[in-house]
């Protein structure tokens, strides 16, 4: 969109423009990074953070100083793994051991890798990976152990997947396989982050006792991306939607993109979204366990974006034609709302859940299931933030009033009195006008005495004129 396009766009959507301005002008990071004291390797790490991720670099860089570098290094390590896995030009014999042993690379000073094909977009990160290794080794040992463990698990998970893809068919078949795939690429990140937060005492240790919660945090984000990118992925010959779901709606995966199967594709999409929405309760529960503002923001922003993206995709045929994205204005508003507290974030979730609910149609085979999952989210939000308590209800039943209610009642009574006075005034006014009009008529010779006599005789209408034709 050019400048003119932008002006036109925002002139009819002033609310979006307002959100963008509000975010750009009034948003203050919880923790400002101090760039002057940074070493060369740190600078390099932040440079790669910016290069490899647009969405995450902003939230990572606003993290509490205690977690700033551990999270940055963690992210870059995983990005490194990803870059090796994604590169189809690396043969299996090289790739598999690299992935499986990546955790040991973290201890090897000066390790770099230039085996990526030139067009691989994050190639440079691995070429200069020694920066990441240097920073990794000066982290607190506890953080190092966490990062290493997750790298180990993810590297092996990826290696299994790559092996399967090379030797047999790696397409996602069952819903369990789909969950497992999402767990390796995103659920593990949730686990690692949670362990970092708890280690830094920014998260409730109970979060680690319920692994389902942080797993859901990752899965919800990953599933949302998989749903939104279905068209783009398919164009790149990648399919992540599990066969167990799509085969219920179409016979061939490619049919999803054909106009004649649009209805089936939308129903299939609904089922995918339903599957993702099952995680929402866990995600909100998880966010309730965070104790530090910048950590909350770090976790909450992507979640809010995800629910908005799901709403955008729900029953939207455009997503089978092109890549769709939430608007910039909405994104800014979401960022503002998800950098405050859980209550406001819950309002966001409720808003989008209701929008999804509104688009739900009884013709969809999963109509009721979607309705039920929406109800569950609302019920859960009501559990953490009750809109009315049993004590309030008791007071109302007993007829007792709080100070506030009594004040409101007094105010209402006053308003009522005002209304009565107004109506009385109007009545008096009407009476005088009538009197004046009757008086004028009388003065001009109206015979009210005759009219009254006729009325008494029961003659309510004027006498009919004589019809001459009868003569």
């Amino acid at each position: 969109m050019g400048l003119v396009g932008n002006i036109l766009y925002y002139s009819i959507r002033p609310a979006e423009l307002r959100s963008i301005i509000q975010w750009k002008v009034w948003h203050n990071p919880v923790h400002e990074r101090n760039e002057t004291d940074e070493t060369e390797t740190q600078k390099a790490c932040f440079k790669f953070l910016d290069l490899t991720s647009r969405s995450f670099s902003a939230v990572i860089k606003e993290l509490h100083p205690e977690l700033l570098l551990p999270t940055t290094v963690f992210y870059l390590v995983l990005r490194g793994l990803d870059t090796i896995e994604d590169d189809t030009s690396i043969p299996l014999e090289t790739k598999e051991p690299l992935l499986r042993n990546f955790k040991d690379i973290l201890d090897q000073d000066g390790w770099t890798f230039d085996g990526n094909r030139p067009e691989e977009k994050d190639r440079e990160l691995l070429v200069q990976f020694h920066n990441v290794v240097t920073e990794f080794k000066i982290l607190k040992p506890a953080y190092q152990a966490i990062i290493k463990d997750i790298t180990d698990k993810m590297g092996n998970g990826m290696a299994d997947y790559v092996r399967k893809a090379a030797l047999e068919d790696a397409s996602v078949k069952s819903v369990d396989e789909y969950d497992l795939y999402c767990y390796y690429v995103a659920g593990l990140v949730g686990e690692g982050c949670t362990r970092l937060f708890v280690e830094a005492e920014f998260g409730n240790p109970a979060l680690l006792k319920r692994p389902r919660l942080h797993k859901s945090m990752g899965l919800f984000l990953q599933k949302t991306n998989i749903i939104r990118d279905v068209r783009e992925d398919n164009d790149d010959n990648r399919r992540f939607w599990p066969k167990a779901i799509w085969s219920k709606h179409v016979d061939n995966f490619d049919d999803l993109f054909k106009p004649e199967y649009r209805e089936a594709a939308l129903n299939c999409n609904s089922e995918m979204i339903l599957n993702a929405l099952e995680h929402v309760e866990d995600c909100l529960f998880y966010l309730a366990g965070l104790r530090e503002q910048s950590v909350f923001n770090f976790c909450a922003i992507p979640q809010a974006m995800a629910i908005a993206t799901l709403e955008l995709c729900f029953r939207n045929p455009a997503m089978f034609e092109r890549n769709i994205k939430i608007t910039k204005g909405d994104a800014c508003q979401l960022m503002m709302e998800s950098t405050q507290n859980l209550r406001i974030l819950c309002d966001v979730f409720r808003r989008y859940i209701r929008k999804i609910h509104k688009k739900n149609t009884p013709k969809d085979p999963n109509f009721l299931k979607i309705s039920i999952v929406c109800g569950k989210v609302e019920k859960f939000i009501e559990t953490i933030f009750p809109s009315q308590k049993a004590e309030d209800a008791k007071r109302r039943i007993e007829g007792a009033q709080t100070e506030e209610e009594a004040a409101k009642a007094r105010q209402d009574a006053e308003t009522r009195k005002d209304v009565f006075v107004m109506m009385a005034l109007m009545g008096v006014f009407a009476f005088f006008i009538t009197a004046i009009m009757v008086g004028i008529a009388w003065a001009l010779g109206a015979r009210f005495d005759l009219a009254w006599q006729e009325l008494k005789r029961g003659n309510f209408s004027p006498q009919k004129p004589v019809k001459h034709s009868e003569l």
Partner: protein
Amino acid sequence: MARSSTPFQRVLISGGSGFVGAATARAFAEKHPECAITIIDLQPPGPTHVVPDSASFIRIDITNADETSKVLQQVRPDVVVHTAGIVPSLAERFGRRLKKHVWRVNVEGTRNMLEAAKGSGVDAFVYTSTCCVVTDDMRMPYPNIDEGWPTSPTSLIYGESKAAAEALVIQQSSDEMRTCAIRPSVLCGPGDYQLVPSIHACIAKRETPFVIGTGLNLWDVTYVTNIADAHVLGAENLMTSRTAAGEAFFIQNNEPITFRDFCLAIWAHFGHFPSFELHIPEGLAYLAGMVSEALTWISGGAATLSRGSVRDACAIRYANGEKARLILGYEARVGIEEGIRLSCEDYARRLGIELPSSSKQKEE
């Protein structure tokens, strides 16, 4: 449910020929096949609400205290499940015309049952209450309520009478005879003569496109066999750990959905999809209800559209099922989606019509 060793030998179910009573009799027979079931009711069991073959039947009127106590002396059950009661029809729900009758059956009947049970050495008394003991007071919304919410002494004749009866039951709990109250939400299931039929009737009346209020208000609905399970769990608890003694429990499917979606799902089973949707603000509908009430007041009879029914349609009513889960170990065995399907199939059979094939495909 796993079969367990039976903690009781004889169960007596009042109102056992009815919707909830018959389902409860079936649940007892399924889980405790060796226990003897006696059904007492005004009417013998019929084909609509099937009861187990093994159950014996005694015809009595529980508003007659002497008769009731004689029957209990004769049967000498360990467990009494008191499901008998009157639910006024929708048309009478908001009026006070039937007040005397409803109170006589629901409150006096319960008092007679309690006295008779105490006199014949009953150990456990499970009472079928209703969520209406709380929610019939329509002055406020009821989101995610728990058992700490107050029952209302002045609501609708049904809620009032059930609240008074429930209070009697809870007060009577003692070491000799433990009592508890089960509070089901709105019910659906085979043999339901109120909910699914009246929603289905909207299709013929061409009322389906109209949405009163926001259409976002959540409701609890319970499939009837789930409520039957809760009665069995209540009886088991009172005979074993006794942690439920003197307690009331909200029981529902724990899957609150909007009232609108519940209706849409039923219509969809019958192959009907509203072609458009028209939202009527609650205030306007309330006014229309008032007019309709005034007209029927003049013409006599009971109004179908009334202020009460408008408020009912817009009400938020769902409970938090934690207490029943923790104390009774209750969980809905039949999900609401399946429950709605089974209810619609049963109603279609009663109507003698075939459901469109699209809803059958969903069964797989």
